């Protein structure tokens, strides 16, 4: 085992003061040990006080534009493949997550581009007609004035399915000038601490506005301490864990959960003509390959309309070849036993359906690092076992997709649609009514747009509280002025 890597970010603490637990990662080959900081309840309270103060001094004293510039500078450091932080992430993230190094490198760059200054400005504009609200009272159309205050302390509970995930909520917190303490996931404990350290290098006064900690799931003391301190809690993870967490969040604290989601693709017959079909398959495969389908935005089923030059069944075979081709470029990570069993079970289940008379074709043998099953009937959208496992479901008309996905309303998130404009909008309308919150292009599912509305919510607006000076207060103040007239 090589040198031990320490995760986390603890302003105001000596590393020797806190406990450290070692997480060992073996999925990608040689074991990698990462030490994560474990704080007791009193230490969490102390960290919370430090971070609140750090946010007051480093963030609340600054204009939003200045904060945007600082984040932009940090992101540009990470976009540079030769920067020491980027080099560390490029080598460590694949080593701990098992994801292919090329995929992490390319995916990380695409992702980081979302947080440069023009994109951050868009992020702000998306949620605030007048981002000046974050800096001071602004006149409102109804009369009076309003100002948006971010929380003093925003708690984050991150998931580890996709590397870099903490950046969304960390940047959201920074833009609304919130102090942040995040709990990293055991599956990916490194990114958040690196970002905090980098931010402190770019602007030392921001170092104390963030804290990054860890505790073992279900260990109540540290978690309870953080939940008690936080004004707002953002949490990512499985629905059971989130429900559990929700029960422990004080009623006065805003809780913003991002749970399990299912996303899918829809390919119209016009995207399957003899010129475009191959590109449709290529882009569909790109979405399936990205982070081995572990994202909330990853497609778990492709609905393919009949009537194009390529039939849905032929599309399934072309998609399988594209997945093979991508395997040579971005190999799938090694599966653990549970995943391998789930996958074998899924293949077996599909084959059994075929033997029982359903129109099912499992493409290719079981040895490939992808699994494609074609089904001739459009059944309800069922969750995939992931790791590049996809069902290609034939539909006779695009509109049929709506009935397939509607039963999953609470879980729906992204739909990638390849269809002509006159069909895109009606389908988007129907899918939106069924619960879909994001419609994107094939091949773009894993690349979230700057300022997107995660699960249909407002990233920044959901974090703030608005203070209003009503017109009456302003008017009443006029009467109390000291001027002589």
């Amino acid at each position, binding site marked *: 085992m090589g040198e031990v890597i320490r995760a986390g970010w603890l302003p105001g603490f000596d590393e020797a003061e806190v406990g450290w637990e070692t997480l060992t990662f073996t999925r990608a080959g040689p074991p990698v040990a990462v030490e994560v900081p474990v704080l007791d309840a009193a230490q969490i309270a102390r960290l919370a006080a430090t971070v609140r103060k750090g946010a007051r001094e480093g963030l609340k004293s600054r204009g939003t534009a200045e904060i945007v510039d600082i984040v932009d500078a940090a992101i540009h450091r990470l976009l540079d493949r030769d920067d020491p932080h980027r080099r560390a992430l490029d080598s460590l993230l694949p080593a701990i997550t098992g994801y292919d190094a*090329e995929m992490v490198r390319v995916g990380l760059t695409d992702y980081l581009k979302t947080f440069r200054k023009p994109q951050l400005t868009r992020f702000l504009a998306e949620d605030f007609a007048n981002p000046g609200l974050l800096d001071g009272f602004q006149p409102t159309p109804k009369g009076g004035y309003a100002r948006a205050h971010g929380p003093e302390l925003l708690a984050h509970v991150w998931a580890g399915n996709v590397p870099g995930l903490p950046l969304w909520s960390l940047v959201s917190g920074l833009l609304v000038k919130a102090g942040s303490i995040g709990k990293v996931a055991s599956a990916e404990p490194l990114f958040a601490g690196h970002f905090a350290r980098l931010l402190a290098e770019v602007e030392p006064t921001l170092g104390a506005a963030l804290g990054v900690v860890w505790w073992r799931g279900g260990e109540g003391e540290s978690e309870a301490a953080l939940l008690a301190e936080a004004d707002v809690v953002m949490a990512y993870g499985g629905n059971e864990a989130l429900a559990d967490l929700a029960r422990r969040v004080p009623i006065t604290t805003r809780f913003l959960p991002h749970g399990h989601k299912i996303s899918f693709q829809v390919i119209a017959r016009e995207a399957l003509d003899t010129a475009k079909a191959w590109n449709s398959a*290529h882009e569909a495969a790109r979405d399936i390959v990205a982070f081995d389908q572990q994202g909330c935005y990853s497609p778990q089923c492709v609905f393919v309309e009949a009537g194009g030059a390529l039939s849905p069944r032929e599309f399934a075979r072309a998609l399988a*070849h594209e997945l093979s*081709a991508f395997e*040579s*470029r971005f190999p799938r990570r090694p599966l653990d036993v549970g995943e391998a069993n789930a996958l074998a079970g899924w293949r077996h289940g599909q084959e059994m359906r075929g033997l029982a008379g359903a129109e099912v074709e499992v493409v290719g043998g079981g040895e490939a690092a992808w699994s494609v099953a074609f089904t001739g009937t459009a059944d309800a959208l069922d969750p995939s076992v992931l790791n590049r496992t996809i069902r290609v479901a034939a539909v006779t008309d695009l509109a049929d997709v709506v009935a397939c996905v509607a039963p999953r309303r609470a879980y729906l998130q992204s739909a990638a649609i390849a269809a002509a404009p006159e069909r895109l909008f009606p389908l988007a309308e129907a899918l939106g009514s069924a619960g879909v919150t994001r419609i994107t292009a094939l091949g773009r599912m894993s690349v979230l747009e700057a300022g997107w509305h995660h699960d249909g919510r407002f990233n920044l607006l959901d974090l703030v509280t608005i203070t209003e000076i009503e017109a009456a207060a302003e008017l009443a103040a006029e009467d109390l002025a000291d001027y002589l007239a």
Partner: protein
Amino acid sequence: MDLSTKNVLVTGASRGIGAAIATAFAAEGAAVAINYLSNEDAAAATVARCREAGGRAQAYAADVTDGDAVRTLAETVLADFGHVDVLVNNAFRAYRFDAERRALFWELEWEDYQAQFEGAVKGAHGLIRALLPSMRARAAGGIVNVASDLVARPSIPYHDYTTGKSALVGFSRNLAAELGPFGIRVNCVAPGLVYPTEASAQTKETLKEQLIAQTPLRRLARPEDVAGPVLFLSCDWSGFMTGQTLYVDGGLVMG
């Protein structure tokens, strides 16, 4: 394919395509001489991989465009191995592949062409001259020269590099005509963009996507993809082929 009786010399074999070719030969049981220019650690790693794969392997430092160094290399390899059945000329003069900042034709000097011509042809020429007596004495031998699919389809006009590789193809065809009567076959393998290698490490994703979009097999070559055709052209399976160029680019070039 059983190559356990074959002795193979691969130039530029410490990394990238050359290392993949050397390892593939070793996996079929061949004894492989691994020539490298300067990266001793990488050469040692390739030797280790070859041995792990089941072949014999030894590393030899030499600049193949230096006449004296080439003669010494040939003598040393012959002394160690007895004879060489297969020579793979894979080394090339360092070149910066950068589609966005490449030199335009009118920015290139004659010396740039000269350097690439020497990198491609002089290295092959020198080694073949040095090894030919031993091959002729055995009335058998296989020579595989690594060119580029850019010679048939300059997707990006790297003038000097591609001109050098085109010369290597012409050189190989003449040599095939000359050496056929002695039972020595000369062929070329012409890969498309191979990723990842040190030369292609900086290639942008957009360029990769453009090439993939036009490639029937829908991906780029990996170093291992080049090894199969090289092995094929080195063994009896291609015993009646000489003077040919096999394109290894997923069907981007057909010919």
